């Protein structure tokens, strides 16, 4: 029965990001969420557990803001959660996140399979999964859209530009998943109530064996200006004809 870890990140929901008139990023009214593809990772872990037995541990690194994310992950079916929390774990870069995860997973959590989302919704660097596998010295298969376990081996269908590569490896291993792999559940009231009873282990910086300094520094974060001044036309005949005239004037339809 496989011991499965699903890693997730609690991120700003990019749909709430606004731009100030002066072109700055406006994060004042943002909400947070479990990063999109990490929901697929949790779902896949739960699906595999339901099929083969075993356990699912959801693991995240971040500041105390992530507390809500733990409950969300547990209501999605994980059996327990590990929260590696510190006020300084804000804006970690991928080498730090993977080092912290490796530190904790390598020393405290038994596992056969680790699942991660292919990339996070906020920074989408797609580094943490592969880096974590390297740190732990286990095989890595990324961009997986179909996964099966048989005994101590896994078969994974990985997306490549020309199609699909079917890969096999033995456990323990790390797999990153794409959103095609499943449709994450929407937790119901009962799931949320059950989640409140599940075990959460909270660890801090003092529980890590070494400090993780950033090597990639963010020296600027600005709103990407894509706004255009939209000229609106009516949905009636004169409006539509007006739009087409504008397109002709722009040099199309020639």
């Amino acid at each position, binding site marked *: 029965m496989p011991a499965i870890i699903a890693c997730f990140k609690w991120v700003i929901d*990019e*749909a709430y*990001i606004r731009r100030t008139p002066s072109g700055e*990023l406006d994060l004042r009214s943002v909400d947070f969420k479990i990063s999109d593809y990490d929901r697929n990772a949790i779902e896949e872990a739960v699906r595999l557990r339901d099929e083969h037995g075993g356990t699912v541990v959801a693991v995240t690194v971040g500041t105390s803001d992530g507390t809500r994310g733990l409950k969300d992950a547990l209501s999605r079916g994980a059996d327990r959660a590990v929260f590696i929390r510190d006020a300084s774990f804000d804006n970690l*870069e*991928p*080498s730090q996140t993977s080092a912290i995860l490796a530190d904790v997973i390598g020393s405290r959590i038994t596992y056969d399979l680790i699942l991660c989302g292919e990339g996070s*919704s*906020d*920074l*989408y*660097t*797609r*580094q943490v999964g*592969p*880096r974590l596998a*390297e740190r732990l010295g286990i095989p*890595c*298969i*990324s*961009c997986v859209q179909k996964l099966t376990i048989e005994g101590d081996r896994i078969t994974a269908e*990985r*997306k*490549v530009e*020309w*199609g*699909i*590569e*079917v*890969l*096999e490896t*033995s456990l323990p291993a790390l797999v*990153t998943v794409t*959103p095609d792999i499943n449709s994450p559940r929407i937790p119901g009231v009962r799931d949320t109530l059950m989640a409140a009873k599940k075990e959460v282990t909270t660890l801090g910086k003092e529980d890590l064996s070494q400090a993780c300094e950033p*090597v*990639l*520094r963010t*020296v*600027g*974060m600005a*709103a*990407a200006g*894509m*706004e*255009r001044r*939209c*000229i*609106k*036309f*009516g*949905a009636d005949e004169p409006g*539509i004809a007006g*739009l*087409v005239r504008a*397109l*002709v004037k*722009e040099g*199309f*339809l*020639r």
Partner: protein
Amino acid sequence: MAGIQIFAENREQTLELLRVGRDIASTMGTKVSVYVCKARDGADEYIACGADAVLVMPPLSDDEPLDAYVPVMADEAKQADPDVILVAATLRGKEMAARLAARLNTGMCSDCMALDFEEGEGILKMERLAYGGAALQRVTCTTRPVVVTIMPRTFEPAESRERRRGEIRELPAPPPSPVKVVGRKKKETAARDIREAKVVVCAGRGIDKKEDLALIRDLAEALGGEVGCTRPVSEEQHWLPEDLCIGLSGVSVKPGLYIGLGVSGQVQHVTGIRDAKVICAVNKDENAPIFNVANYGIVGDLYDVVPQLIEEVKKAALNQPLAE
């Protein structure tokens, strides 16, 4: 030791990274090496296009995945101690780059869109998108080498120059990979490549059923353009192949004219059309974010608007003088 190292999956991508690598190398005053994995294929061309060295990795057996090369590249990078490693951001390239960065204990800039070596400060400044394309993140790396992945078709390919010389060197075979390839399935590719289309008509979530795509096709045809779609149409409904999915996780298009029909304008999609010259949108919801990034818009039901739009486009086309 110093230098720039390049790894890509094919010739086109390699030439593109050679352009980038050559530019930085000339400011840094250093050399460019290219990893190749198909015997000596293309080595002479790469040298002509700016490589100072071609590092030939022995071919892999059929059941070895491409990332089997990671240990060989890591060993070579440890020896050569390059300043920068450029990797084409293909699906496999991204994983290989991240694993290489982990092995070299260094930082990595994923999906870099622009990079500039500041001679005075001696720092490589890199730009990338964050928050689904809503933000531009600028990063620098405090360790070396800095690993940089670049999405294919971000830069122009390098051109060959006369009489360049370079070294061709064989690298050792990689150790057996713990991951084995047991099958390959080629996908059917879309008949047309929308990345170079002059006009793109995009189907969004506002399309109710697959048959209604005919309406989108008719408009595309009237405009002499191609059909694209948003993520829900290809990935959730599977009404169109994923090669036509426009956005951060799909393809980027740069047409003269883009028309979004029933497209809400989520930031991930909008990022894929940022280089369109003119953006046009038809959507029922007047608050749809697509209108913030559009040049022209119609608030209305696409099922009412599009048939009329097709008529008007046909009329306008008839009124155009023939052969200008």
